[in-house]
């Protein structure tokens, strides 16, 4: 069935179209969702690498 549908499609240009649409969907949806996030949560997550309680200054930073 799938094979028949693909063959009947003639050339396979619809794939490029499909790819483009899905890309912009993924890109667009993630962009919209990201900009709807509240700042406090974002700040909390962004600071997670710095909040693991083992900040040690070595001779490299002290110079």
């Amino acid at each position, binding site marked *: 069935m799938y094979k028949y549908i693909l063959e009947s499609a003639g050339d396979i240009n619809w794939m*490029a179209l499909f790819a483009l649409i899905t*890309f912009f969907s993924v890109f667009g949806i*993630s962009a919209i*969702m990201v900009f709807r996030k509240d700042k406090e949560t974002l700040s909390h997550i962004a600071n997670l*690498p710095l909040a693991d*309680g083992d900040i*040690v200054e*070595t*001779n*490299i930073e002290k110079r």
Partner: protein
Amino acid sequence: METQEVKTSTSQGGVDTFSYDDKIVRDFGIATTIWGIVGMLVGLMAALQLVWPALNITEYFSFGRIRPLHTNAVIFAFVGNGIFMGTYYSLQRLMKARMFSDKLSKLHFWGWQLIIVAAAITLPLGITSSWEYAELEWPIDLAIAVVWVIFGINMFGTILKRRENHLYVAVWFYIGTWITVTVLHVIKNLEIPYSMMHSIPVFAGVQDALIQWWYGHNAVAFFLTTPYLGLMYYFLPKAANRPVYSYRLSIIHFWALIFIYIWAGPHHLLYTSLPDWAQSLGTVFSIMLIAPSWGGMLNGLLTLRGAWDRVRQDPILKFMVIAVTAYGMATLEGPLLSIKSINAISHYTDWTVGHVHVGTLGWNGMLTFGILYWLWPRLYKTQLYSVSLANTHFWLATMGTLFYCVPLYWAGWTQSMMWKKFTPDGFLEYGNFLETVTQIIPMYQLRALGGAIYVVGVLIMAYNLYRTARSSSGVEDTTVQVAPRVKYVKAKGDHWHRWIERRPIQMLIFSAIVVLIGGIVEIIPMLIIDKNVPKIESVQPYTALELEGRDLYIKEGCVNCHSQMVRPFRSETERYGEFSKSGEFIYDRPFLWGSKRTGPDLHRVGGKYTHIWHYEHMRDPQSMSPGSIMPAYPHLLENEINTTYTKAKINVLRNMLNTPYPYNYAENAVDDLRKQAAEITAELREQGIDQEDVESKEIIALIAYLQRLGTDIKPKQ
């Protein structure tokens, strides 16, 4: 709302005291350094062989066998251990939990090292599938799958027992990497074993090529890039002591990158026999890749806003800045190389090798070094032995990268122009391929010098790290006190993304869907629609002798230097003959199109030279082509043709993969092989070869295969 919930719940709970498993991070760090040195030294050896062919010492260390050893060592041993080192360190801290199981961590570590050792033994022995970056044979493939699953269980187990609700973006990159590598590894390595160490691929010709480069490109994407982006998002803020510039941008970076990357593979096959629609998809998505890649690069560089004064002094930040910049350069150049008109010039030349090394030496190498320098004093609870040695290493690494890459760009461009140049009368200006090789030898010398400088830097780093570790007075695991995890209560107005980003399983499933879309749409039509690969009536399966010769071609790694794909350019059809058709490769398991022409294309070499020319050329290439940099293969004149598995191979090809061999051919295969060998030997004798027992030697099988290449569609004389 959420912050308030966290605060309230924290005050109600107690405090957990636990330690992070730092030993496993140290172990992976040591392995990263050792395998880095080994892999780069092998690369240096390969680079020197291109300048002095006499360095092809014995069959086990000839270029064709050690080039895959180099790529496997630096990708899976150096970068692989680097990924695990960084992941095990950052994951525990981001999840505020010790690894799920110390036993699994150890199994993972030792399993991975054993796989590397197995690769280091089998590749010089010529045990290879010939697929670039997937050369290892089926038993090792199975071992990789098992160890990868162990890593996955350990990682997800840790995520599930975490004390932090949110998954930081680095963890998304780890999850995306894990699921995609799993899918790639399984599909790429679909093969049917016929012996304990050998197998025949399920897919042939064009289909095998598409799957190979879907895999090959994504090995770069999901082994050399996404996990390292995860490391960048963790270690760069740590080293700069400030959060990532834009967390929003990092989220878009993640989703856009994993979605687009998976489609870009066919850009490795432009102007080949791959159908046009697949080539176009590869080009379009490759160009689109610039957007998320540069978004990520800028996000990394801008994280250093306000800290640039420190970059002048801190070698760690220096390494990281160069790494992120190299990431930006490589991800701009990659899409440009995917434009057909540029690819027509760059493909098969050293330009590609230079491009790849901007990524590996610049991005992977420099980021790994930066992380190692950052981690070592912390893991060993001491100070770095010498900051000035680290600075020296930085300059050596930078100069080494430049000396490596710039000559190769020069070499690639020069050689490509020479390949394409015609005289005013319409003949090829450089009809002898060798002329275009000897012209760029000085560039190969400079490249080897660049590699040597880079390796010296790594050796200095190893010494520095060793002395740092020795100065440690004790290495206990880091103990921390953290509040238990607070159960998250959905707040009004929460959207689906928050739902995903707190739940690793959903993240895994969404990542898998996003990644699979590209793979399915691109690959399935190629597998099931016959008209993508038009059949050619005159194309027949290989004879038993040719098949054995083909396996020798694979064993010796000839594909590392010779393509079998004449592109439809006048400069190529003049030089090599009729351009290659997809229908000519339907019995090629694996496909052997190659990706680099250190020597000429061989697809139409059949019938071009006499048997004796091949015999003498394999014995001593310089005797037939003075100035050639090809290794000599005298052992082919001494070793007996191995017919132990001839029948088994034919059986797999005929009975399981529908290759149209005559009924009972497997039973008679060895007889047929001997008959054809006798015919070739008779011709060789007429031409003046008097070697005793030559009839049963490997050279005869290889000559049979080379003389068959590309002849199926030639008019019979």
